[in-house]
């Protein structure tokens, strides 16, 4: 018995890692695609609240800090194609049909014990960093796995117009008190790598004319 457990674990670990590597291959036959979701579910490890979880969070934040040095190649042909589609279609209907056939749509993603979800769920209300603007609030519309990287399609909330600034009672201390945002969303969607999501936010409606949202990143 001695030593068998270690050997068994080692073999299973190698097998899972080999498969994970295989699944990232670009020339993977289409027939294998349905297996990937099952594989990810089977080998998903719950590391919430552990030292490994903390180590993982360091890694994610480090990649953000490096300014995209280790970011997935979002200018790959398929991804660039989606971006073109999003920027040229205001209503963005049928987006699911437009993502690459090899992409796997995910119902939710867990990172560092936090669950990110598409749809109108509060788990889908996030603050994300955008290459051309300061961090802003948005709703997750779709999460998908493509070429071993996770991407998110987000519908941002509208910026608060300057004329509504007098409504802002958060003292300019956004870090502690949050800030006011328009409760209306943009029609255009944005595609970003998952690593661009910074946090969730707490929100409460604070007015109907104009519809405003008090946003507090958490």
């Amino acid at each position: 018995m001695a030593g068998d457990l270690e050997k068994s674990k080692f073999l299973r670990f190698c097998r899972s890692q080999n498969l994970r590597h295989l699944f990232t291959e670009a020339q993977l036959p289409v027939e294998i695609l349905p297996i990937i979701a099952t594989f990810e579910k089977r080998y998903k490890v719950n590391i919430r609240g552990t030292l490994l979880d903390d180590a993982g969070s360091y890694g994610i934040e480090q990649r953000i800090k490096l300014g995209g040095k280790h970011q997935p190649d979002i200018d790959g042909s398929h991804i660039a194609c989606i971006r073109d589609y999003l920027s040229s279609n205001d209503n963005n209907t049928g987006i699911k049909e437009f993502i690459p056939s090899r992409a796997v749509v995910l119902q939710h993603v867990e990172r560092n014990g936090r669950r990110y979800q598409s749809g109108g769920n509060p788990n889908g209300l996030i603050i994300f960093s955008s290459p051309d603007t300061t961090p802003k609030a948005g709703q997750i519309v779709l999460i998908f796995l493509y070429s071993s990287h996770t991407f998110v399609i987000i519908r941002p909330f509208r910026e608060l117009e300057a004329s509504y600034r007098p409504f802002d009672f958060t003292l300019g201390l956004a870090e502690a008190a949050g800030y006011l945002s328009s409760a209306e969303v943009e029609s255009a969607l944005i595609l970003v790598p998952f690593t661009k999501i910074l946090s969730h936010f707490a929100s409460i409606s604070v007015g109907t004319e104009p519809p405003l949202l008090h946003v507090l990143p958490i």
Partner: protein
Amino acid sequence: MQKRLAEGLVDDDGALLDHGTPKKTNVLGKDTLGEIRGDMEELKLPSWFRVAPKHPGEVRWGKFKADEWKSFCTVNLPITLSRLWGKRPKIDRHYRMLDNFLQLVTAVNLANQRRITEEQIIRYHSHITTYLKGFIDLYPFASITPYQHLSLHFATHLRRWGPTHSWRCFAFERYNGVLQGLPTNNKFGQ
């Protein structure tokens, strides 16, 4: 110090003079707590977030746990108090109380980061110092507690040992909770 001396709270050496036990005053009050409860019902929060008890300030809802205090003070209070007091004139006492409290919240948020930089440590120290100075000014009859004093040394600890999650006592507190939950009546299974 000068203000406290002028108000007869301390002697020339800075020692607090005994005026008997001051009457406890309410900072929030029933109306404000009612607004906080109302906002708690409307607030949208992600599922992983530890929400504070829905009836803060009521004895029957028991004591808050540390994580619940953190939620209540860093999310619920800033959202409601900034709505209620943030629109008042800057010289208004409630506005100054809110500004002072948000200094504390900013310091706590900075101290709870999973990554911490020298710039963030400097900011933490600046906010906690501003908070404590404002605290003495706003609440002259209150004393600085040992924990508030220790918070001024916290920047040194952050420099020495890094982000708090690797050395804070939440894990030990959790075990205290587990031990407290163990039956001690010497009856098997009860």
